[in-house]
């Protein structure tokens, strides 16, 4: 049982910080298999992320917390990340995470997933990619789509803030047409890349476009995506997590922006292949959803 790797050496227990002790005693691990993990446990348990160093009110940071709360089996989950604001949160996560090069996250994830299947044929290990829009759709597009073509059993979650935020606010492929950002001083000239549709045509069995406005909806999508990836094939979640700094909002205005998104540009999109639909039905019957 991999939770043992998070047990503190008894000789050092008395000098461990409270957060580490909390992690061992009261974290949101998949302890209780009767009901799936979710948002409901957050108020009473230690989250799998210890602080974060992003801006106050960052929607990405909030959404990451929903994602971590929804992983079906976090102690057997490897998260592959990429350069950007998300990579600044990763050292604070209690799980195995990898940050490799900008854009190669789906390649690294493919290698990890296949080797973990080879080395542990009797265990279920989930590999989840968490990256921004620049990493997923621009510099990493080739590797993202190719991992879908190859039917890699991984879940790709894109934190779409429609801009290269960490480098100071440059246009990305996911920026809306007409939006002015650096490197697009007269507005972006081409449409936002419909990555969730590309995911579908490239072979994803489950593809969603949504915002991070509703924690439970995010948790549900994450859980479904990971379950489908276990058995059927690659899955993709595009989540609008606006960069409040780059679009000039204050710390408490991020949620409103996402809710506005729900109504217009980020109306909920969900594609599920027939096999995945079948499988999710089964999961629901078995109480995994």
């Amino acid at each position: 049982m991999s939770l043992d790797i998070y047990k503190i050496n008894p000789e050092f227990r008395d000098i461990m910080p409270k957060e580490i002790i909390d992690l061992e005693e009261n974290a949101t691990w998949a302890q209780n298999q009767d009901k799936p993990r979710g948002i409901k446990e957050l108020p009473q348990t230690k989250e799998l992320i210890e602080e974060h160093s992003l801006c106050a009110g960052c929607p990405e940071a909030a959404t990451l917390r929903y994602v971590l709360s929804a992983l079906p089996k976090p102690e057997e989950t490897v998260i592959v990340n990429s350069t950007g604001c998300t990579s600044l949160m990763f050292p604070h996560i209690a799980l195995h995470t990898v940050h490799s090069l900008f854009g190669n996250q789906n390649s690294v994830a493919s290698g990890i997933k296949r080797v973990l299947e080879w080395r542990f044929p009797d265990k279920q290990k989930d590999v989840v990619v968490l990256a921004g829009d620049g990493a997923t759709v621009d510099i990493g597009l080739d590797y993202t789509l190719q991992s879908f073509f190859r039917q890699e059993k991984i879940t790709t979650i894109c934190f779409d803030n429609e801009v290269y935020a960490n480098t100071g606010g440059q246009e990305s492929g996911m920026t809306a047409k007409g939006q002015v950002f650096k490197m697009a001083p007269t507005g972006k000239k081409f449409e936002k890349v419909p990555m969730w549709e590309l995911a579908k045509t490239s072979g994803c069995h489950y593809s969603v476009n949504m915002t991070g406005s509703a924690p439970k909806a995010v948790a549900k999508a994450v859980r479904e995506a990971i379950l489908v990836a276990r058995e059927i094939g690659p899955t993709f979640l595009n989540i609008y997590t606006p960069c409040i700094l780059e679009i000039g909002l204050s710390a408490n205005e991020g949620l409103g922006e996402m809710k506005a998104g729900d109504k217009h540009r980020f109306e909920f999109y969900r594609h599920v292949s027939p096999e995945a639909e079948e499988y999710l039905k089964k999961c629901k019957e078995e109480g995994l959803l």
Partner: protein
Amino acid sequence: MAKDSIKIRMPALGGQGAVTAAHIAATAADTEGYYAVSNPFFGAEKRMAPSESYARIGTVPIYDRGEVIYPDIVMIYHPQVITMGKSYTMPFYAGVKENGLIIINSERDLLTAHDKKILDDLNVKVLTKDFTEFAIQEAGTELATNMAMLGSLFGALGTISKPAIEEGIKDRFLKKYTASGGTATLDSVIEKKFKKKMDLIQKNLDTASAAFDLTAEWADQVGLEQILEAPKK
């Protein structure tokens, strides 16, 4: 003995305008007839994260680049630089040269007896003042803290005139300025506060000027010797 070239290190927190301050300091010095260089040094652009900037001013060409590891003047823009170690050097005055100057924005004295002994032995003078409160009083906003600190720096130096400082401030706020996302956001916030840009300029000048005067007076009182020689005209 006034030097022909000095280095200034400004450890601050992101969002305080230390980068802007270094820029204005160098511009003002340049206007006054000095050679001057300014540059920032920070990790990811983030509010309240360490953000350090430097200005090098002299009567001789300046070749040195990068961080200022051996400063003549250290300006601490926020108490957390010291209390929370949000600094690239430990202690915050590491490397400070003899006969130097430290300006600390804090409402209370943050130096230990140990610190004071070391700085005393180096004949480094320390000015601790709540410049944030000062800025709020003079300009009505804490975003003018950097202006107050700048004024203080020039008051202590004595060789950069108020007209040169005005030139530096105008250059920064009136001309088209390439700013990062975070800086641009703060620029627009401060602009909204003032009906006209000129009101903003004036308030900044007034704040800097007031800080200039009080620091010049302090320098006199504590016997701060001239740090940088006057520019060769």
